[in-house]
């Protein structure tokens, strides 16, 4: 299972004509269902279609007390989850968060996440500012 996919994008070409500003697009945000007071994990795809590097600095949602970017690291078969710090999104690149790697961890969920629900999430970028996305709660068995 790949941690994170850096997909060099053809958008780089288009970006050259855009005068070197970061242009962030966030899509395909999803989470698995949770129950009780357990935290949730959100996976998103971030695409920088601009000509300038950008960084994901923080994440906010009304749906949880805390949202933070986490990284699951594997060593010797042991999984460890740690704060990831800022996520670099170079110009013309996209980052797809996939299970078992970088994720947005939601602590203190207002209500558990149920399959079929959706809720808003705001990602704050250093250059592009705030990007709002709707998170889809998938089936527990979603890959």
């Amino acid at each position, binding site marked *: *299972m790949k941690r994170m996919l850096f997909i060099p994008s053809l958008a780089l070409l288009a970006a050259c004509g855009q005068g070197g500003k970061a242009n962030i697009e966030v899509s395909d945000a999803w989470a698995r269902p949770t*129950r*009780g007071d*357990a935290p949730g994990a959100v996976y998103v795809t971030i695409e920088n279609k601009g000509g300038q590097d950008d960084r994901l600095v923080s994440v906010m949602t009304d749906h949880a007390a805390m949202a933070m970017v986490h990284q699951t690291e594997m060593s*010797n*078969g*042991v999984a460890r989850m740690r704060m990831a710090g800022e996520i670099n999104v170079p110009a013309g690149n996209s980052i797809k968060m996939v299970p*078992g790697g970088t994720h947005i961890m*939601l602590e203190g969920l207002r209500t558990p996440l149920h399959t079929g629900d959706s809720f808003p999430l705001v990602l704050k970028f250093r250059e592009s500012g705030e990007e709002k996305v709707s998170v889809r709660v998938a089936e527990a*068995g979603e890959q």
Partner: protein
Amino acid sequence: MNLKQLRLGLWVLVGLVAAGLVVFLWQESKTEQPAFSQTSLGTIGGPFNLTASSGKPFSSAELNGKPAAVFFGFTHCPDVCPTTLARLTKLRRDLGKGNDALSIVFISVDPERDTPAEVDTYMKLYDTPVIGLTGTPAQIEQVKKQFGIFSRKVEQPGGGYSVDHTATVILLDRNGQFSSTIAMEEGNDVALAKLRRITA
């Protein structure tokens, strides 16, 4: 202590012996090393007693007669645990032999929070049968030892804790004997081949 750490420790030992003793002794300790890891692989698993998500006692004998994929985790785990369980349920579907061909077993490494009821609601998130087990801290420690599982509580910023833990899936044949493992990073085709072997 997991197997890799054990093996590393052994190699360090081997190195020390090699540096300090005559060639004869060095060779002897070197031939001993692989023999030891084989024995320890052979003893992964073994009988255990835990508590089912129904709250009833669960004996490992209940698994016998059916191959099993055993995964250790905790219900407050948002990423690795649901990902692994989702993967196992998909692999079992891809195997195409029905849910009866393979037991998927989840054993909690967080007995403090994971009561049987807690484990029960977690298992019910999946639309396919998963056996969820927990136990007393002593029982869990014992089973972890038998399966070579490492886990450690880690305080989280803002309160609460997470648990670092071995995420490798352990495959048992229908007699409860250790067969192989599925690592997190391993491809699904390899994993499927391993599952075919134990369900053949």
